[in-house]
């Protein structure tokens, strides 16, 4: 009976990992759509939200079912607790991807993209995506080295958002025609910053899963 349980646990873990990478891809594609002004891709990212929610619901049900049937303890219990937390962070990340895609669509196809690069949004996105990717790979492999510097990396992302905010304000003061674009970009910077926070949440849970010790990153 327990072997069946551990098989099911392994399947759930694979599902959680799959959902995590799916969400990461949503954010990554949304940022690409923003950079390349690709409304087709943005629309497609928005549509992926349904599948994301579906994965979340299925995995949550799986977790509750495993708890009810097997009353797991120790690592098994941490595995399930961790899965429940990771899927909710993953869902948030995916939804920020969807929201970013929404920004692409609301800005329309004819916009100059100079500000985007000037505001270092692509750079920020790269940092955040690598944090998410490392947290998920740490979950996959148990390699805590991958998340050892999440605290410092999150600090950099926070500072970057602050910088982008200040820069955005100066652009808007300089030329009010950029206000719509800039406020949308500032929103995206905010989404990215939140996604970095969620990658820290995932990292915290991976740390708990592997060591049994709860830590706070940030």
């Amino acid at each position, binding site marked *: *009976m*327990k072997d069946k*349980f*551990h098989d099911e646990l392994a399947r759930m873990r694979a599902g959680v990992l799959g959902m995590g990478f799916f969400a990461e891809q949503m954010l990554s594609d949304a940022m690409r759509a923003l950079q390349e002004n690709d409304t087709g891709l943005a629309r497609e990212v928005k549509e992926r939200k349904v599948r994301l929610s579906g994965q979340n619901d299925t995995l949550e049900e799986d977790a509750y079912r495993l708890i009810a049937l097997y*009353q*797991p*303890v*120790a*690592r*098994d*219990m*941490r595995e399930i607790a961790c899965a429940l937390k990771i899927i909710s962070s993953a869902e948030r990340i995916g939804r920020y991807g969807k929201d970013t895609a929404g920004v692409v669509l609301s800005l329309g196809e004819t916009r100059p993209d100079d500000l985007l690069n000037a505001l270092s949004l692509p750079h920020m996105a790269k940092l955040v995506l690598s944090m998410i990717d490392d947290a998920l790979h740490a979950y996959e492999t148990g390699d805590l080295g991958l998340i050892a510097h999440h605290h410092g990396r999150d600090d950099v992302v926070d500072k970057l958002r602050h910088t982008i905010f200040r820069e955005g304000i100066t652009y808007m003061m300089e030329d009010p025609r950029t206000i719509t674009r800039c406020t949308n970009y500032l929103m995206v910077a905010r989404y990215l910053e939140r996604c970095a926070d969620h990658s820290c949440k995932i990292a915290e849970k991976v740390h708990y899963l592997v*060591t*049994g*010790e709860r830590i706070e990153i940030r």
Partner: protein
Amino acid sequence: MSPDTIIATDRLNLWYGDTRALVDVSMEIPDRKVTALIGPSGCGKSTLIRCFNRMNDILPGCRIEGKVMYHGENIYDNGSDPVSLRRRIGMVFQKPNPFPKSIYENVAYGPRVHGIRDRRTLDSIVEESLRRAALWDEVRDRLSRSALSLSGGQQQRLCIARTLAVEPEVILMDEPCSALDPIATAKVEGLIDELKKQYCVIIVTHNMQQAARVSDYTGFMYLGRLIEFGGTTQIFESPRDELTENYITGRFG
């Protein structure tokens, strides 16, 4: 040794003939807490609690080395009296084993053996013990009925009442719920929770969820050794030893 410790073992070893059943067990058991011992069959957990009230003495070929300190005195020292020890350290067994006597007589038996004859004193001991064992309300109007007419769960609580009647300090329980249905089990577990306010309870159980539910401390034993001892939450959330982890998550045992 912590001031809350009531029983402590120091490098306790036990042999049944040539078989070494306990290997260098050192542990401290706190008073007024529930301590659970878990481990696969034959790991020595029953043997260990039977050492606490010298129940192994009567087995032929049994040899003990090391110390079991109770209130700071080694219970295996010459001059230590097993009978008075067993009054202070009571035991409840796997299968309910009431005497084939009335409910009243089952509880009054121990105090009588210890010299209490006054009927009113005995009446109040019986009532108090049955109340503490959460059985009084169910049997108050049929105290003269045979104990064997009770259900399994009631019989087990009667055995607990019988243990309480001689005012012990420590209650040893060896798989007290394994012969009971889930409802009777829940009652005994609720009772254990009450008992720890006044007594030190040490319970051996195969049921890991039960250990997790009722105990404050848990010891995991394997092949006669105490592998890990710690707070129950810690043992069941993040055990330090891989053997403990593998056992409680059902990977062996």
